[in-house]
């Protein structure tokens, strides 16, 4: 069989990439249904940098961005600036980098495996499985930093391998710089990347020992690039989020020990302070958290229980990958490139570690880096079934893949926006479109802050001038907008509009009810009449 412009191998590769792109790109403005507040903040900060050179809080070209309860790393925010410049400030531009880099990761997986195994069928199998991976698709369809970080990491690894095969120092230096930069894109990589590099260094010690000077130079480059993030990690801002969600939390330990004491009888009650000590307790929690990421329920049936991180009723990876992973694990030793096999295993073993030290677990976003070794191992299994087993088995397996993929796409495009509207804070766009169209008629527009941080949505959807906001605005209000608690004394106000939560009874004239994609009311918009 021949194709007019492409050979068979490239035809399959292009088809896989197109499929991967389509399933990541279709309806991204409206599915996920709403813009989560982190996405809105990232988008508006990039817009603000484009217009003023400073983030919306007025910090000029910051290295770390203050967000809601944590600090964001700069990678995604700066990468987004040209997208916002070209496509404007909207859902599409905020999510597009992940669609593009998510799709490019599929290509990178192909190139990485092809370069290391010289087996293009295996490379195509793994690329195909990544293209239709629910885990990777989920994080490629919204502004999650983890997707860009995974792309950068995989690209860096590809370059390092290229330097090993071509003995070209430039690739190694570039690869190591990119590895260091992953730490500026997503928090997980501040732990994962250094551990992985040490592991790779150990696996390829024979090679690296031959080029000691080069290795020392690249290590120094890595350390220099990592200095700001290293310093940041020890500041209050750098530790805030990690401390608040830490597994090593003293309060959780005390709670667990008290519970143990309450339920135990003497003499164990009195022995508990010796037996139930913190290092052992922490080791138990870490062990359980770590193994959670390999639990079949998480991987194949239920996934992460946060609606933004998975389809919840579908596993992180496709159910047909269960036999593929089992076959793949036992065929791994047949890989001729033993060192690459060790790197894959190292990658898989280290990947959940950043997610283990903070709660809750299992966490699909913090452990996204697991997805690549998993698809490669599944790819080995798929390759075995397609090309080394009987044709009837291969055909039946293909049918199973098609059926699972159809069910998944139906869930993704047909049900997801409705099912997880609340998880994505859907309704804010419609609310802001309405109030911004009528706000000029009112002296004041009050917006409830019960749903979080409405100011960022107003900034985002009205494309509010960043320099004006930096000078005169605050999270309490700007222009004629004011953000209030539900017990704020605003009912004596006339000529005002109040965006209230649906459960709040307000004396006024109801102007509009805002619904989310599930057709649940989210806000009631009232015109205040001045009657208390």
């Amino acid at each position, binding site marked *: 069989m021949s194709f007019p412009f492409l050979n068979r191998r490239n035809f399959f590769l292009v088809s896989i990439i197109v499929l991967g792109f389509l399933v990541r790109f279709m309806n991204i403005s409206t599915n996920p249904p709403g813009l989560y507040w982190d996405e809105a903040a990232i988008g508006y900060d990039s817009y603000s940098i484009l217009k003023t050179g400073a983030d919306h809080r007025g910090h000029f070209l910051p290295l770390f961005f203050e967000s809601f309860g944590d600090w964001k790393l700069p990678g995604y925010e700066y990468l987004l600036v040209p997208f916002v410049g070209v496509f404007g400030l909207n859902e599409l531009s905020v999510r597009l980098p992940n669609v593009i880099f998510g799709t490019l990761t599929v290509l990178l997986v192909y190139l990485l495996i092809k370069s290391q195994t010289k087996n293009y069928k295996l490379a195509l199998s793994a690329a195909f499985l990544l293209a239709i991976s629910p885990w990777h698709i989920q994080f490629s369809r919204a502004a999650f930093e983890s997707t860009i970080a995974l792309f950068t990491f995989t690209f860096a690894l590809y370059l390092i391998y290229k330097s090993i095969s071509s003995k070209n120092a430039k690739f190694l230096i570039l690869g190591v710089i990119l590895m260091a930069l992953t730490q500026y894109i997503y928090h997980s990589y501040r732990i994962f990347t250094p551990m992985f590099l040490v592991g790779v260094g150990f696996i390829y010690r024979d090679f690296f020992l031959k080029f000691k000077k080069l290795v020392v130079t690249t290590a120094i480059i890595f350390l220099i690039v990592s200095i700001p993030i290293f310093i940041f990690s020890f500041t209050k801002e750098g530790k805030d989020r990690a401390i608040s969600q830490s597994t090593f939390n003293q309060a959780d330990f005390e709670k667990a020990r008290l519970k143990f004491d309450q339920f135990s009888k003497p003499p164990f009650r009195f022995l508990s302070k010796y037996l139930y000590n913190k290092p052992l307790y922490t080791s138990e929690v870490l*062990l359980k958290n770590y193994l959670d990421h390999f*639990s079949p329920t998480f991987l194949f049936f239920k996934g992460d229980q946060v609606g933004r991180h998975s389809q919840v009723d579908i596993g992180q990876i496709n159910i047909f990958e269960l036999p593929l992973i089992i076959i793949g694990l036992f065929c791994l030793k047949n890989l001729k490139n033993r060192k690459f096999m060790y790197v894959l295993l190292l990658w898989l073993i280290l990947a959940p570690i950043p997610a283990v030290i903070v709660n809750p677990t299992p966490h699909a976003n913090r452990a996204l880096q697991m997805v690549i070794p998993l698809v490669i191992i599944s790819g080995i299994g798929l390759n075995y079934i397609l090309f080394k087993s009987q044709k009837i088995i291969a055909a039946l397996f293909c049918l199973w893949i098609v059926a699972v993929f*159809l069910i998944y796409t139906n869930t993704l495009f047909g049900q997801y926006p409705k099912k997880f509207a609340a998880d994505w804070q859907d309704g804010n766009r419609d609310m802001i479109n309405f109030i911004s169209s009528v706000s000029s008629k009112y002296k004041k527009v009050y917006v409830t802050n019960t749903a979080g941080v409405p100011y960022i949505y107003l900034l985002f959807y009205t494309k509010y001038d960043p320099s004006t906001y930096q000078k005169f605005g605050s999270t309490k209000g700007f222009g004629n907008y004011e953000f209030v608690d539900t017990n704020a004394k605003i009912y004596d106000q006339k000529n005002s509009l109040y965006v209230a939560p649906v459960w709040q009874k307000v004396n006024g004239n109801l102007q509009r009810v805002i619904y989310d994609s599930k057709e649940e009311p989210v806000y009631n918009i009232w015109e205040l009449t001045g009657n208390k």
Partner: protein
Amino acid sequence: MKKKLLKTIIFSLFLSLFAFRVWQASGCISFKSFLFDNQRITTNVETSRQYEKNPDGLISRATHNKFTAAPYEFGLNISALLGSKYLLDLIGPLGFAAALIAIYYIITQRLKLGFIYLAILALAQIRATLFTSSKTDMLILCTLWFLLCFWSLNFFTKNSVRFLVFALLWLYSVWFFFISWQMPEICNEIFFK
């Protein structure tokens, strides 16, 4: 001779760990049931349809029906019995590690008896989801998982480092069983023994 002695020690330690857990479990007055509920299939289909744009449409009916929901729900039930939390509560960290080594050993060495044993274990998991005898299920599964661990004896007796790892894991497992005496993944209500 030395290897035989090590094997005997490891065997005895495994046995003591197993006996300790079973003794602890004897205080349980209500074991957790993993019985499969047929209603879940109907609920699954109905819930899925509820979110469909066109619930009576061809795609909806083709992708969300009892035929697709049944294997999912049954698989989900079984996966709970293979979950890391459940297995840690049942056989402890040492048992978990030993079971993984044993499975690897059986498959790589292509041991016929081992495969039969794994099939029996799989049947026991299915049995636990089909019949209402949660205490018996727990005892059967605990026994079968511990017996599986004996295939890892050779691994731990190969050198002194591995034996040391075994000893540390054994101590850790005793401590683990001690503090998780309430067996939250296995038992709903337990009396202190």
